[in-house]
């Protein structure tokens, strides 16, 4: 059965699954072990897609909804993978007053994804951050380690085209 939430296709390997099962077997009988299991699972896969949460549910007997509830409660858990190119838009005060909100919306529109999401081809992921320490260049966007400053929304397509 397909999950209704739009997601990047799952590319988990049998090795990853085996590693997760080892972790679960070690921890599952301990009280309060769900959080550490989920953290380890995220270490292994980089995020917690439905396939991974199903493995945890089946191996521990904990209902899937309990796992999902925790995964959506804590900011440390990601439901979407990070892209090959991680775009983070500074929405800190200086960048925001200089219009980084519009830059963010333009990126979101161009890529067809929202905050915390990844494009289906796995190339770009989008998130916001708070101050990268380059307020003089506001508004600032980082793509992996590259910094782009003094941006306007109409510069977005050109930058994305580089990748």
């Amino acid at each position, binding site marked *: 059965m397909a999950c209704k939430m739009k997601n990047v*296709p799952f590319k988990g390997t049998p090795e990853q699954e085996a590693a997760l099962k080892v972790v679960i077997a070690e921890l599952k009988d301990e009280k309060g072990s769900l959080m550490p299991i989920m953290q380890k699972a995220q270490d292994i896969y980089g995020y917690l897609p439905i396939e991974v949460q*199903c493995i945890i549910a089946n191996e521990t007997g904990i209902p899937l*909804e309990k796992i999902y509830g925790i995964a959506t*409660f804590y900011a440390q858990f990601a439901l979407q993978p990070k892209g090959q190119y991680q775009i983070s838009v500074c929405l800190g005060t200086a960048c925001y007053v200089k219009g980084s909100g519009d830059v963010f919306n333009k990126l979101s529109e161009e890529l067809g994804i929202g905050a915390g999401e990844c494009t289906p081809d796995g190339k770009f992921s989008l998130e916001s951050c708070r101050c990268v320490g380059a307020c003089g260049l506001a508004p600032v966007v980082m793509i992996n380690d590259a910094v782009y400053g003094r941006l306007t929304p109409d510069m977005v397509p050109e930058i994305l085209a580089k990748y």
Partner: protein
Amino acid sequence: MENVNIKINGLAVSAPAGSTILDAARLAGIRIPTLCFMKEINEIGACRMCVVEVKGARSLVTACVYPVNEGMEVFTNTPRVIESRKKTMQLLLSNHNRSCLSCVRSGACEFQTMAVELGIEDEGYYDGDKTPSVIDDSAVHMYRDNSKCILCRRCTAVCEATQGIACIGANHRGFKTDIGSPFEMPLADTTCIHCGQCIAVCPTGALSERDDTAKVIAALNDPSKTVVVQTAPSVRAGLGEEFGYPIGTNVDGKMVAALRRIGFDQVFNTDWGADLTIMEEANELIERVTKGGVLPMFTSCSPGWVKFCENYFPDLTEHLSSCKSPAQMQGAMIKSYWAQKKGIDPKDIVMVDVMPCTAKKFECTRDDQDANGVPDVDISITTRELAKLIKGFAIDFTILPDEKFDDPFGIGSGAGTIFGATGGVMEAALRTAVETITGAELPKLEFDDVRGTKGIKTASYEVGGMTVKVCVASGLSNAREVMEKVRNGEMNDYQFIEIMACPGGCVNGGGQPRQPGYVRDTVDIRALRAKVLYDMDNSESLRKSHDNPCIKAVYDEYLGKPGGEKAHHLLHTSYVKREINNYTSD
């Protein structure tokens, strides 16, 4: 246990050590309003409607979780307390869809009642953003409108603690928190078993059964259709509550009168279908025991339980009796035997059943529930929907005369009647199975060991030189406990296991009238409603399914013998093995 002496509003109260302030207040007959609290199921102190003042305490405390101490002085109605409750209520109202006039719950809503009791004058005082929400009407049995949800978590608690399923829960965080399913999937795609216990405990209009009354009205207004209704045993034990009668009032006669006045062409009694189920089920059990079939056999009349078994114990579905539920059997008989007798094309019969159950809405859509090429049951409505129909037709229920069901499916034995209570199916089956095996009449018809609202009951009987061991469970957490034992081979010496999805059985089904939280906590609804059925059984002269003259006639004239070819075609069904937690991203 030692008692602790405290004062509540100046009144001396003695309560067992370890009690909460709420327990102590209830002992003393002092009501403290509660919203999220459900005894032993949801004790989370989250809604803060039960706040009280404790002398010497820095801040207000939540009575539902705060333990009593010797000498404690509690005040439940000080201006500070009232002010706090009002503010909490106003904040809840600020994120609540207040379309109360058109709400399914209006007039019987716990949340609305509380707002009125508190004397809220400005319900929109804190209005601002509202948590975004979507309506989930994907499942056949229910409707979830989170814009009316107050996040009390009663539904998720009952789903997890009582039923052991947890297909719904609180997702996300802070203002975005909502009650939903994993990965926002529609409820229909989850492990939900349609029991409706979440609906029964919801204090607002956020959860309700899918309303099928419009379909019933449309059928009644179609002159080409013969609209036949049947009512389950438990409906008569609950329906009165919708019209101001005390819990545990038998409204059998008035219910029949109301159904006639609504305009049903025939008003039949599912107790008859229950008797038919017993004939088939007892026969199946005897066959399995004597011919070495899969044992222990599980009952199959609770559709919530059946789906639970398919979901979580697919390896054990062979243990399920192949018998359809009483309502489905009766529907199949009405569309075959009765239709032929009356010369009506089964396609022109609309079979409506009134059930204490929301899972019946799912059951009647299942495969292999259409013995005559048309569904055995077309529309399944709950006790609550029947009340809605009666009110909508402006029928003054309280002054109705007592009327009798129509023949031939109006006669049910006492054994069929007690089907609505946990242990009832077992007792009814034992009455027939024991007499069939021994050929002698039972000196005593009551099987007391399987009665009562205990979650798991076991008993052992000597029948014709053989030891028969039986187990009865209600509430699916209890069922899970029993099933794990069956899976591990610990119940191999048992022959028959009765499971009902809802705690206490159908009398406490998800489609029964809703009672507020404090009533559910302080009154045993299950026992009071079950007593209606046991009292009816006691006052009947016909108390065994196999003695029901109309059952005998149907086998003589039409079906042949129990478990025969015709009976098998009409009255038995099949199950599927479901896979859970098998979802993919794309």
